[in-house]
């Protein structure tokens, strides 16, 4: 079946511009996660959506970052006023909604963001 999809695969933007990154989870998965992979910081958690509960935003690095999930499916990660340190690969993952730490998270291919 279809896996997690992300778009665009690559995004180049100028410093100060806003960008939107999209994630389409696996059908039937109600938990959705965003992570960031960068050279300096490795892989780090950003935000987590579980069903209709309030999202866990504890990993967002600044208030320039926000995310929403519409209709319990597609999610958009928005970065406002991008900075060069935002350059990274942004990964989305989804899992079944058991709410347990044992759940397997399935990852998309990522969006490579370059801020010039």
């Amino acid at each position, binding site marked *: 079946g279809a896996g*997690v999809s992300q778009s665009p695969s690559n995004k180049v933007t100028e410093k100060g511009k806003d960008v939107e990154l999209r994630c389409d989870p696996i059908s039937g998965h109600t*938990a959705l*996660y965003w*992570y960031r992979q960068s050279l300096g910081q*490795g*892989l*780090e*958690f950003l935000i*987590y959506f*579980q069903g209709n509960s309030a999202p*866990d935003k*504890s*990993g967002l690095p600044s208030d320039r970052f926000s995310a929403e999930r519409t209709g319990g499916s597609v999610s958009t990660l928005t970065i406002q006023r991008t900075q060069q340190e935002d350059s990274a690969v942004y*990964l989305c*993952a989804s*899992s079944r909604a058991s*709410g*347990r*730490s*044992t*759940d*397997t*998270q*399935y*990852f*998309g*291919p*990522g969006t490579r963001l370059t801020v010039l």
Partner: protein
Amino acid sequence: AQSVTQLDSHVSVSEGTPVLLRCNYSSSYSPSLFWYVQHPNKGLQLLLKYTSAATLVKGINGFEAEFKKSETSFHLTKPSAHMSDAAEYFCVVSDQAAGNKLTFGGGTRVLVKP
């Protein structure tokens, strides 16, 4: 708080020889542990996971890992490396205290020599 340390940032092996990737974790609760692999310009793929059942876990492509609570380790092994095993490997921990957030180790890049 949970954390993961991968003891080697790079490992080089010859094709056909064993592979050992070392991982130590810290968790206040009964952890779930995962190994993911990332091939160049590809997404993360799950190799195997430990979720408090059998301590020896078998995964895809001949990999296995053993959970050792007394040593807080979850080392990944494979008896015979293949060229296609060249990739970056991540040890990952998750526990109830952290919700379902994954905490990743720094990664181990594996080079396989012919």
